[in-house]
């Protein structure tokens, strides 16, 4: 397991945009306690910025009315939260058993040749980032790749090549 405790400070204040603000307010009536808003708030930040900086965490803690340390715990525990900027398109390749048996390495190798990045890296032009993740829960249609949150099942190098071509 890696140490994710180094938060990045942008030095700039963070704020939800109009849309996220409204969504946050809508969600806040949904739970019996405000602390239940921790995970949704983290998702909203990530949706807005693509990643989560120190200022955003402090902001969300204030909005929720809880200790910043609690958001710090959650954001470092769940690896799907990005603590630094990612590529414009974030690719997650499942590396757990079913996907592994059915050829996840082929996909990873393909990406290495095609765009020159290995898991954990961001392409030089900032267009792609790659990450290997644990079971995505689509074992029946393994191997599975998740691109910008969307699942792509029964993947292989050829299909992935077509998919990449459609991405910004």
């Amino acid at each position, binding site marked *: *397991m*890696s*140490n*994710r*405790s180094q*938060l990045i*400070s942008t030095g700039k204040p963070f704020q939800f945009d109009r849309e996220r603000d409204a969504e946050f307010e809508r969600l806040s009536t949904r739970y019996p306690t405000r602390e239940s808003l921790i995970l949704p708030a983290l998702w909203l930040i990530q949706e807005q910025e693509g990643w989560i900086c*120190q200022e955003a*965490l*402090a902001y969300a803690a204030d909005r929720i009315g*809880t*200790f*910043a*340390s*609690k958001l*710090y*715990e959650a954001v*470092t*525990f769940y690896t799907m939260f990005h603590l630094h900027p990612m590529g414009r398109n974030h690719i997650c390749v499942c590396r757990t058993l079913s996907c592994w048996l059915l050829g996840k390495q082929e996909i990873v190798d393909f990406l290495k040749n095609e765009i020159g990045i290995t898991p954990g890296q961001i392409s030089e032009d900032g267009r792609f980032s790659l990450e290997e993740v644990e079971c995505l829960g689509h074992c029946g249609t393994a191997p599975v790749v998740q691109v910008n949150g969307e699942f792509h099942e029964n993947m292989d190098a050829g299909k992935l090549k077509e998919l990449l071509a459609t991405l910004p």
Partner: protein
Amino acid sequence: MADKIKLFVNGVEVEVEAGKNLIDAIGAVGIEIPHFCYHPALGSDGNCRMCLVGIEDGRPPLVPACKTPAQAGMKVLLDAAHIKKIQHDVMELELINHPIDCPICDQAGECKLQDFYMSYDKQPSRMTVAQVKKGKKLDYGCGIVHDQERCVLCARCVRFCRQITKTGELGIVNRSDAAQVEFFPGRPINNRYAQNIVDLCPVGAMTSADFRFKQRVWFLKRAKGICHGCAKGCNITIEHNREKYQEDRIYRFLPRLNPQVNGYFICDKGRYSYHKENEGRLTVARQGSQVRNQADALAACNQEISRSPKIAMILSPNCSLEEMVAVKSLAEKLGATLSGFSDGYISAGDGDGYLIQDDKSANRAGLGILGINSNRAVFEKDLGEAQLLVNFNNDLTRSYTEPELRALLKDTKMILAASHDDGLAAMAAIAIPIAAASEYSGSLVNCDNILQSFTKAVSKNHDPVDIGTLAAQLGSPLQTRAEQFSELRKYLSVLKNFEADTLPAEGLKLTDNEATHVTA
């Protein structure tokens, strides 16, 4: 008194208090269930699994003792082979990445990991992969030094900041073997009770910058005391040691459990007040700028007293009831006025509704009980009319600036009995060293009208007297502590069933009548 129930531990019947969890219930009769994360003040968290026990009644094979209430007839298994195996395995897990730096760890001697290793594990390591190394000697704020490697992730420190101080500085970040206690970047621990974290930490992961490496804990002698830092009167353990040829020194104050007064904790300021017991002390008697031995200084005092037609006396609101009553009798005998004026001991707005009080004196309630006037104008008037002021350790520099004091004293001479050599000693005609709070016995009444007693913890080489003894030497009719105590019974009828030093450990709650000075 809580109800008692009977249950079985390893087949042996024991009687325990109902309503407690197994750790506390069985612990009270001397049977240990090892545990890291549970603490009675913080509740159970169930994260360490060190406390797993068996219950022979068809429950799951293992239950955490910290979350299991004791019930009548329960059959608790601690010594079965599968429980021993669990204890070994949990210990092994805890020690996978733990640095074995006990010889240099400041917690050695009071570390639960070390103790439990010796009692429940003692196996060679089976680890073949490299240890995960984490940060060492990190500054976590408020004088707390964190050694991440040693942490067993019991989260006591985290829960203390969230539940007790409600400041929530700490969290456990990351997961699995990267998990570690952290503060949010730029927001280190910042509360007035932070040092309790060091006491709560069962291992050497949180240590005190103030205490680290000053002493091995097994060299320290322990005595019970009452903090004199404010009117709360928190119960403390005074840990001290006299190294060969040296003075007896206090190394730390630790909180001592008293559910009626301070629970498990004390404030940092009170904790650090031990420094004042060690330092800045008045150790020799002086007449003017001349050093005098105690007997000569006393003789000089008696001479001054006998030649002054009008004497004013003042005492400190930190004096014990015994001291107060002795001085009061002395004043009455000499026809002197007596004041407890001490506005300077009050720091308005500093109290926090928890332990810390505005009133930084330990026995202001005692002044009321004994009917000692504390009015400023009355004191100043009395002083103006007197040729001599006998000051029993009242730090008047808290209430007046030096020029104000000089103006007030004008040609009134001052005899000063003081534990500390502050600005006041220089203004005194005669200054006599007396004992500080850790060096004598007595009783106090706190802000909640709880009467508590404390006993002498530390013996200094120059062995200063307490104010009660000094008052006796100056002619108080109450010559011994026993006489002082029986005089106190006239003011406090609750004392009729007690002797000095036999008050209940948790103190005596006075009735409103007693506290507001209705003499028996």
